[in-house]
Every structure is written in C-alpha cells, then in structure tokens.
C-alpha cells in the first residue's frame, strides 16, 4: 500500500506526471505574488465538478459504513440531528474500499489512506421537488427536461447562473493579480447532451436570464485554448485595436442611442476581459502539447471511456497546476462506456434499459460497475494527480482545491432525494476532510419509501429486487445549502451570490431557486419536513426566504464541513 501521493518537493518547482507519461517541470515564477486572504481560502483555491447522468445507484452500494463520532442538531429544527464520522480505508488484497462502499473502491495503489483522509462523502442532500432529468445541480434548476409540473414551474421562475460561473466572474475569487496569470476563468467540458454551466445573459443583471456556457472542444483543442498551439513566440493580439475601434465608434458618433452605447460598452468590456486572458502570462512554463486527443470518442467499454475522461481531466490538472484556470466543470454524460456487462448484453439503450431499470438486479449491477469505474479511473485519477503536485505556498494542489463528483439523480432515476456526493480536497484550508456526513433526519415519521410514489402503468416496480423492497430513506438538508457551502469554501462572499429575493422582497438564502414540490408525492413526503405546518406558503411554489429554518439558514455552511 502506498504511504501517500508521489510528491517531489524541490524548492519552488512543481513536478507532475503529465500527459504522455513524462514529468513536466513547471518553474514557479516568484515575481507573481499570491494575495493572502484574511478569511476563507489561504491560497487561490481551485474548483472542479464532475457531473454524470442518471444516478440510480443503490444507497447501500454507494455509501460507506461509518460510525458517527460527531452529532449536532440542525439550528431551529427540533429533533433533526445530523451526524458525521471518519472515513476509513478497508483493504481486500490490492483493492481499497472506503468503508465497504462498492462504488468508492479502487486499487490500493491509488486509493490510499492519505487520499481517503482528503475525501468527504455526503448523504442527505435533497432537491425537495420533482426535478427529474436535468443538468441543473450546479444551481440552475431551471435546466430540467420539464418531466413534471414542478420542473416546469421552476423553469418558469427563471434561470440562475451556476456556481462555477459565479466563481469565474467573482472579483474575490479572481483578483486583478490572479487574472494576470489566468488564461481562462473557467474550463468547461461538455460530454453530455445538455450544458451544466450557465452565466448571466447580461452581466450584473440577475433577473435578465442566463445563457449556457458550452463548447465542443476536443481535449487537444481545450489544451490549446488554454496553453496555446505551440511554443512559438506569440504575436500581440489585435483585440486591443478591435476594442479601440468600438471605442472610436461610440465616442465619435452622435447617432447612437443611449441603448446602443450600453450594448457596445458591454461588448467592449468583454473584449477587455478577453484581452486580459490573451495577454496573461502563464505562471509556469508551457506544458508540452499532449500527444493524444479525445477525438476518438468515449463509448464502448473501458478503457476507451476511461481514456476519454482522463484526457480531459489531464487538461484540468495542468490548468490548476499552472493557475491558468481555477474553475472546471466536466459534464460527462452517461457512464455506459464503463460497463462491460452492458456492452456485451446486446442492449443499446442505457437510459431505458439500465438507468430506468435501476431497481432490477442486473441493470443495477451495470450501473454499479460503471460508477465504480468512473470513480477510480476519472475522479480518483484526477485527485491523485492533483495530490502529486505541490503548491509553493504549502500543501498539494488537491489540498488547495475542492473537486466534486455529483450525479443527476439519487438512488432512483428521476429522484433527487439524498443525491450521492463525494469530494476531494481541502479548499485551501476551508474544509474539514475525511468525513462521512449524514444530514438526514433519520427515523422520522415523515419519510419516503423508495417505491411508494413512482408508479405508472408500466409498473415501475415490476421485477424489483427483493433486497430493496422495503428500503426507506429520509429528508435531510437542502441542496441549496450544499451549493452555498461550496461557494463559501471557495471564498466567494454571500454579497456576490445572494442576489434574489422572494415575493416579499426578502433575500433568498442558499444558492438556487427555492422550491418545494407537489409532483410525484413530494408534496406529501417532503413538504412537511421542509415546510412545517406553521408555514404560510403553498406547496408547489417558491417559499418565502424564511419559510422554515432550512431555507432561512441555507447560506450557512453545512454542518461539520467548514473549519
């Protein structure tokens, strides 16, 4: 068993085993000061989110067995006690498992005690309405497929920028000094059919709608977009003169309306931002261009899917190491390529035949093997890379990052109650790690049986495995509070993201549109938990900011996590 990540501390040099398998020396440029932060992260933190489709993995296979060593009560809520306990690595031969989890398991050469100590597993984080199919769990809940009335209702309330774009546009997250070495404020990878990241359509206008941030770049093109196409001397970009052209038009023309000027000024601001990125100086020597490219695709069983994912997270690792970017989002799409069982089954429709048959043993097995594979071969792979690089200010790059793997749905495809979430990284000193946190209100009488509500003429439960026939789970804490925790961990103050108000003009807390649903039995099972009987608000509508302690305290960090 390895005693820790491969770390080479040589003065101020970063070493990383990069793409192509050779070490890259990245000299630290001492002239570039890092701004010490009085509160929050101690060094510029990095944030990464890996999103996979469907969910559907049984909780019993995903969550580790952990003995709670800490408990606390949820503020303002009688009888809601949450708990946390330390994660532990269990070895079976050369395989390590986190608390017996069948998903969070990998070769012990990679999944080490050190990395387990930098990990968190979170349970009991809910979207308490029928969100169903979506790519909205970074805070733009409106990005759902409208499968039910709840999703349609939330979409009608308007979109919100996602937390990665909040960070990307934050003057706190990216100071002026930071921008001098930033080649891209966010690196977005789209492997699925819908974007995960959304930015404000009109910067500075939170009610003016959102626009997706997406691209179809290959891993090589992504690398080149950050690090350039070659080591050849770069000619001065013409963007500055383009901007001057706009300025000249605005200043000299008397036939432009004030509305015209506003729009052109916005364009000029964007050009200025672009110029900043184009003229930014890498805080490292330019890494060698990768010799492989993701263009050959990701479907088909591993190792194709794994290699495809790794090529992209390699770029993320390089960008984080160089501080060329400190935000990354990887919308992976579905994990069918990681299931040899599915590949040899003769079936072709992962969505219909596997994800929506999560309650049957064989499809569950394929889901399980796909999630274990992506955990080990993409997510843990990235964590290990980041932990193999030292930041000059102290700690590894992983220590100064927060990387998150989340899924579209929880144990039941279409449901988002208790979304299975795993993280690595200490957020540059803001986060406690090595914990399993259970935020559910266990044992309460208002609960949701996994099988009770979702019936349809086809028989959602037909053929269900006996092993989950009587499974129940419980409501916990709001997903909005988890999103807020991530923002706080990255040092982004509430003033930059508590930008919306309820119908009475009170500031909404947490991040993401508050809602409690009525569709698919959410109204009877989860509403009483999140909206107590004394609430004056209607289930199926956006609650008032202080409708319950859950909503009122949603901007506070989740228990146990923040230092």
């Amino acid at each position: 068993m390895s005693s820790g990540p491969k770390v080479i501390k040589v003065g101020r040099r970063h070493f990383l085993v990069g793409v192509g398998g050779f070490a890259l020396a990245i000299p630290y440029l001492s002239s570039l000061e890092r701004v010490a932060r009085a509160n929050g992260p101690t060094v510029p933190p990095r944030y990464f989110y890996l999103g996979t489709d469907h969910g559907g993995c049984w909780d019993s296979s995903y969550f580790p067995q952990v003995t709670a060593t800490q408990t606390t009560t949820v503020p303002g809520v009688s009888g809601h006690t949450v708990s946390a306990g330390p994660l532990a690595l269990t070895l079976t031969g050369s395989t390590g498992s986190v608390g017996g989890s069948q998903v969070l398991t990998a070769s012990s050469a990679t999944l080490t005690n050190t990395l387990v100590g930098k990990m968190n597993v979170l349970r009991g984080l809910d979207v308490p309405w029928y969100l169903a199919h979506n790519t909205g769990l970074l805070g733009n809940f409106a990005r759902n497929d409208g499968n039910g009335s709840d999703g349609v209702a939330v979409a009608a309330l308007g979109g919100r920028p996602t937390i990665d774009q909040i960070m990307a546009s934050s003057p706190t997250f990216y100071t002026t000094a930071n921008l001098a070495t930033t080649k891209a404020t966010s690196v977005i990878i789209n492997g699925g059919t819908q974007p995960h990241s959304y930015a404000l359509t009109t910067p500075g206008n939170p009610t003016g709608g959102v626009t997706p941030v997406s691209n179809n770049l290959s891993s090589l093109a992504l690398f080149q977009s950050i690090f350039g196409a070659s080591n050849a001397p770069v000619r001065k970009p013409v963007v500055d003169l383009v901007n001057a052209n706009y300025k000249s038009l605005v200043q000299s023309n008397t036939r432009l309306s004030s509305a015209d000027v506003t729009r052109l000024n916005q364009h000029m601001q964007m050009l200025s931002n672009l110029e900043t990125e184009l003229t930014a100086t890498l805080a490292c020597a330019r890494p060698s261009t990768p010799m492989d490219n993701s263009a050959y695709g990701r479907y088909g069983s591993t190792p194709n899917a794994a290699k495809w994912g790794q090529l992209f997270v390699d770029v993320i690792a390089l960008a984080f190491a160089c501080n060329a970017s400190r935000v990354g989002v990887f919308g992976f799409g579905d994990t069918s390529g990681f299931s040899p069982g599915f590949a040899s089954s003769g079936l072709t429709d992962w969505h219909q035949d596997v994800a929506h048959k999560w309650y049957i043993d064989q499809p569950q097995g394929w889901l399980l093997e796909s999630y274990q594979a992506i955990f080990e071969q993409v997510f843990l792979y990235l964590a290990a890379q980041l932990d193999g690089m030292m930041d000059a200010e102290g700690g590894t790059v992983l220590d100064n990052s927060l990387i998150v793997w989340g899924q579209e749905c929880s144990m039941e495809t279409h449901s988002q109650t208790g979304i299975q979430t795993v993280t690595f990284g200490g957020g540059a000193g803001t986060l406690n790690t090595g914990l399993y946190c259970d935020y559910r209100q266990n044992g309460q009488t208002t609960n949701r049986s996994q099988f009770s509500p979702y019936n349809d003429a086809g028989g959602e439960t037909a053929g269900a495995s006996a092993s989950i026939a009587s499974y129940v789970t419980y409501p916990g804490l709001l997903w909005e509070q988890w999103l807020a925790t991530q923002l706080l961990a990255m040092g982004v103050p509430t003033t930059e993201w508590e930008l919306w108000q309820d119908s009475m003009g009170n500031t909404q807390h947490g991040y993401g549109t508050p809602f409690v649903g009525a569709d698919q039995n959410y109204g009877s099972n989860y509403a009483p938990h999140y909206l107590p009987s004394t609430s004056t608000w209607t289930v199926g509508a956006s609650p008032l900011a202080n409708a319950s302690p859950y909503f009122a305290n949603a901007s506070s960090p989740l228990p146990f996590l923040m230092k």
Partner: protein
Amino acid sequence: MDQIRALTSRQYLNTISDVITAVTGSTSTGQAVLTDPTVVAAKALLQTNTPTIPLPLVNATMESTENAVTLGIAFPDGGWLRADQSIQQSRVNGFYYFGVALAQVLTSPANLASVVGSCAIGANAGTDTACLTTFLDKIGPLVLRRPFNDVNHPSDLATYTAMFTLNGPDTTQQNPAAPAYQDVLTGLLNAPEFLYFVESDPNDPPVANLAGVYQLSAYELASRLSYHLWDTMPDATLMATAADGSLLQPTVYQQQVDRLFADPRGAATLNQFFIDYFQTESIGGPRGTGGLNYHFLADPNSLASVQFQAFAGPNVPDASLYANMVSEALAMANYFSANGGTITDLLTSNFSFAQTADLAQIYGLAPWDGMSTPPSFPANQRPGLFTRALFTAAGIDTSPILKGVYLRRYVLCDILGTPPALANGASVPLTTNETTRDATTALTSGVPCNGCHTNYINPLGFATESFDGLGRFRTQQNLYTTTGAVAAQLPINTEVTPYVMLEDSTTTAAGAADVMNLINTSQKAGACLARNYFRYTFARFEDLTLDACTLESMVTTVSKGGQVGDLWKSVTQSPLFMRRTIQ
C-alpha cells in the same frame, strides 16, 4: 425605441460564407476554407442563439418598458432567435477566436494570393502599403457593409493599417506579410460594423416632425432588407442600388423586395420564422402545447408501457415521427406563402402535407410527393394548420388545456392571466371511466380555475378532441386498463362555445371546422400573425400605440383575402422598417 442589434449566429455564418465567396470569387474556395480543420475547430467555440422572449429595451421609456413586460408575461412561451441579443463573454470570445482561425486560413499560402492579391506574396510584401490599401478597398465595403474610408469614415484606413503594423511582417514565414494580413482580417471580422447593424450614418435625414427619428441611408436599408429576407449580407445587385442611391426610390425598392423574396434564400429565411413561431424545437412542443415531445418519446415509462402500446396500436412513435410532424406544419406554411395562399387557407385548408409514411398513416392518407396537389382530408375533418398532429399530439392523452392556451395566445393573441400557484401541481387524470374532456372539466370547474378555463381556454382545446394523443382522427375515446385492455369506449364531444371574440357568449361550434371558420371570420388570426411577424422582424414586442400604423398596414394586407406572402413583404414597406429612432 431601437437598440443596435447583433447578427444572429445563422446570419453570422451565412455572411462569413458569402464574404469569402465574394473575396475569393470562388464558391469552392469558400467551401474549402470553411471545412479547414482549423476553422472547424474554432467553430466549436461559436455560441448559437436560443429563442428568447424579447426583454424591455435598455433605457426605454417607462411606457414602452411596461408594454414589453406586460406582453412578455402575456406571451411567455418560445421566443425568437433574433431576440437573443445577449452579450456573453463566451459569445465575444467565440467571434474573436473564429475570426483568428478564419483569418489564418484565408492568409495561408494556399489562399493568400486569391484573398489579398499577388502583391501579398514575397519578401517585401510586409511593407507594401499600396497592396494593403487595395485589399482594404476591396474587402472593407463587403465586411463593413458600407463605403470604406470615404468622407463619412475617414479613419478607416488608419484603423486597419494600425492592425497591419501592430506586429508587422514575420520574416520567418514563407509569406512574411501573411500574419499582418491575418491581423487585419481578424480585426475586420470583429469590427462593430460587421457583428452589429450599425445604423448611425450622420447624413441620415431626420424625419419631419418626429424628434429623434431618422431615415435610413441606402446602405443601411440594403443591409436591413438583406438580413431580414435572406439572413445574410446584401449581394452585389442590392449593393449596387445602395451605391447609386436608387434603392431609396420606391419602385426600385419594391423590385428588390420582390427579388429577394422570390429567391430560394427568401424561402429558407421565412422557414426560420415559422420554426420560431411554431416553437418546433422546444422540448415542450409548440409554445407549451405539451406536444409529442422528445422526452415523452425517450421516457420508457411512457412509451413502453402496456397501456401506451395498446393505445398506439400500429402507430408507435419514434423520434422521427415528431420531426415529420414538424416538417408537415412547416411545409404547409411555406406552401401557402409561396403559392398565393391566404389566412383562410392556413386556417381551413383540407390539404395534407405529410410526406412520410408514418405521419401519412396517422392521417389515413397517402404521403404527399412534395410537388403535385396535396391529398385532401375528408371535408371538415381536419381543417387548417392548427388541427395537424404537431399541434394536437401529446402522447397517450391529449392536452386540451394546453391546446386551448396555444390557440388563445398565439393564434388569437388574446391575453390570459398567469395561472394561480395551485395550478402548478395540477394534472388531468387519465381514467377508465371518463373522457379527457370530462376529466378536464371536472378539474377546472371550481373557483378560481373556472374564471379562465370554462370560457376562454377549455372550449378551444375541446374542439380538437376529435384527434387523439397521436393526432389520429377519432369519434370515440378508448380508455385502457394498466394491462392494456379496453376499459371503456366513450363518444367524443367537440361541441363548444368557443368565445373567439371574448365577449361572444352565444355563438356555438360543432367542432374544429366551425371553430376554425369562426377564427377566420373574426380576422383576429391575421392580426395575430402580423403581430408575431412584427416581433420576429424587429426582435421586440409591438407597442399597440406607437406601432399602430405599422401593424395596421400589415394586417390590411391579409385581411379580406390578402395573400400571406404579401404580409411577409409588407413589413419592409412600413416606415418603421425604413427608419431608426434614437433616444
């Protein structure tokens, strides 16, 4: 009132293609450039537009802002690609990087001579100012859509010369001047006059008695015409009429309008209006009708259920069926636009435009070959556009409420209030003992729902209950058990009091045919179509006071048997189209 607008992604790419063809003189060269791997890779960075509900204009008057907000609430579905004017960092970046890539390929050894000229080749080309000037004189007017470096724009040459000399020639390159020309081209392709419709010629004459209103110049008008009717830059013929000023003569102007409209590019652009108007690309179906949308088809619990299989019988849909329903509706709209059709045709025609076997089978007719006279439905069975499957199909069950809302809002342009919060969780149950009409009535007959549903929403939806959830004609509704057995067969009732005119509580209709005739005779559909075409043209909501004259002239063209083709052209004849308001 007006705000400077940017090219849509469709307009941008069309223009890029036409500029390259014009500069190189070769369509094949243009194709080769656009398929170059460097350009293709950069194209991945371009952001596409999304249909957008027009937002109130920045710095607009309070009245016009309130108008836009009111109409945005009243017509909340879908949107217009042209109204997507968001200034996104990713969009600006995409334009810049694509311009860099395109310029790189255009100045590559294979293309430099044909794009710039042979004077750009050679060791001394980097300092050949005459070569640069000649190139700018050629390409400047094409890209900027106006004269280059004339008395009104005396700094053009200096601006782009500065880009040429920014880095200067690169003597390590095969053609040292190529990188300098690349910088110039990058600058041109990112110029405000290229990416935006800059209509601010200081010589534009003011309109008498209208403060802040100016007549567009010939060049500005040529641009407006071309981008409205073709979604691309003016061609050489149109530019020539701008250059000699003849475009400002009414007869010449009308000739150009007719020419552009008759061109295949005119039909393709008009088709885009219909795509926007019908909201065919929305996952929720046309403007929230529910539609046989992608999710329903992809959701195994809906499609694979025993109940649905029994209902669908031989017509189990796949993803292509929805696309074919869309194609049929577009084909119908385009057919009547091109062949002298009227509003009456759109509302009452019995022609089927289904060209694929699956939809034709649903209709019970032979497929149309696309050329001869379309086959006809039996009289009064399926009249007009809004009884077609695109607007009636919704899956295992119909959606009378959504169908009614659609007709009320987007065919009649009547304003409905916002549903109460309790409507969010409501759904019409599919039972084994009552029709969808009866279940809908039971759900919506109580207070406060009945205020809107009983008179203004449900009847319009009930009138087309003669079509099932796949758009098939029926006289009875089969209700199925969960095992697929027929539980009941109940007669369809399509008799309604439709309130086509909101105050008319007495006129009744036997079904879809009567309702479509009532809509036709009310003249509201033509007015509504004109309003929606106005929104498409100007990328904003109409102001019923300030835009009254324009709307009136548009509506007049289609009232009393006018051709819809004339409606599309009429907006170009409106003073609003030929002027600009600066506030």
